[in-house]
């Protein structure tokens, strides 16, 4: 294991950068909250960012030869969500169960 100062340095650098990336935008945007640009971005961004997050996590689950398994599980998740009253926990549970089942099939 590397020397403790290296580890402390890494942890400090990671903490400061992560915190700054999360905090600085609030300070910058707060005075602009009423601007048309900020309001437009606040309205447009969430759906697209959620789609990107869904796509990226799908891609990582589908890697290592699990594309078909992930596609089936994603379809089950969406189907349960749309037909069973949009209960997130139920939809996520059903999709995850299907994926775990398919991946661990002998």
């Amino acid at each position, binding site marked *: *294991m*590397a020397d403790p100062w*290296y580890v402390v*340095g*890494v*942890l*400090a*650098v*990671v903490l400061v*950068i*992560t*915190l700054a*990336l*999360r*905090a600085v*935008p*609030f300070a*910058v*945007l707060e005075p602009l909250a009423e601007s*048309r640009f*900020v309001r*437009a*971005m*606040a309205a*447009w*961004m*969430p*759906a*697209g*960012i*959620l*789609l*990107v997050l*869904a*796509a*990226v*996590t*799908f*891609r*990582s*689950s589908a890697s290592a030869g*699990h594309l078909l*398994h*992930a596609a089936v*599980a*994603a379809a089950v*998740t*969406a189907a349960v*969500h749309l037909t069973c009253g*949009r209960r*997130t*926990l139920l*939809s*996520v549970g059903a*999709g*995850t169960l299907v*994926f*775990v089942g398919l*991946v*661990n099939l002998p």
Partner: protein
Amino acid sequence: MTPEHASRRAEIAAGVQASLAAGLGMYPLGVAFGLLVVQAGLPWWMAPALSLAAFAGSLELLLVGLIAAATPVATIALATLVVNFRHVFYAFSFPLRVVRHPLARAYSVYALIDEAYAMTAVRPHGWTSWRLLAMQVSFQVYWVGGGLTGVALATALPGPIEGLEFALCALFITLTLDAARTRAQVPSLLLAGLAFSLAVVAFPDTALLAAMLLFVGALVLRFLLGRARG
């Protein structure tokens, strides 16, 4: 119990409940992270230490390998900047305004992970300070707890159940479906789909960041074009 206490309890309960679906994915991913820390030859306490310093799953998984290889701190700083840069966009709609206490605000910003943003992005209204913080603290408990479980498992069991991390993908699918209920969201979804496809082809190793930058760039363009047209 005073009415104030009762409503606080109800808000905390609502926050914990809002955290459960994401927790289903975060906890097993935390276990995988803990296993990785031990397998990479790092001391066990690096799992909770990284989860407190970074509190960002994908970055932590990457850091394990970088630290084990004794990568220079400057390189690690650059990797952190690139991998976590997407968080700068979350301030556009995260309901931080409901949190009043300075310390609570600081924690809420510190714990603004993808999952916290995602939950509030779909339901932008109705958040209170207690509900939001209870959800974020729950997330960190799942993540740190998962990491510690992974560290313990690494020395005991053959391995955790494969595939549980799909819960995060399932969560983001349901949240996308919830966010996309009106036709007004169609342009954003199309632009995001396009951005992701381009990112996977052009920047396969940094697809998440590239997709978000392309998507936000497209939205800025959309705003400017809309304004030019009046």
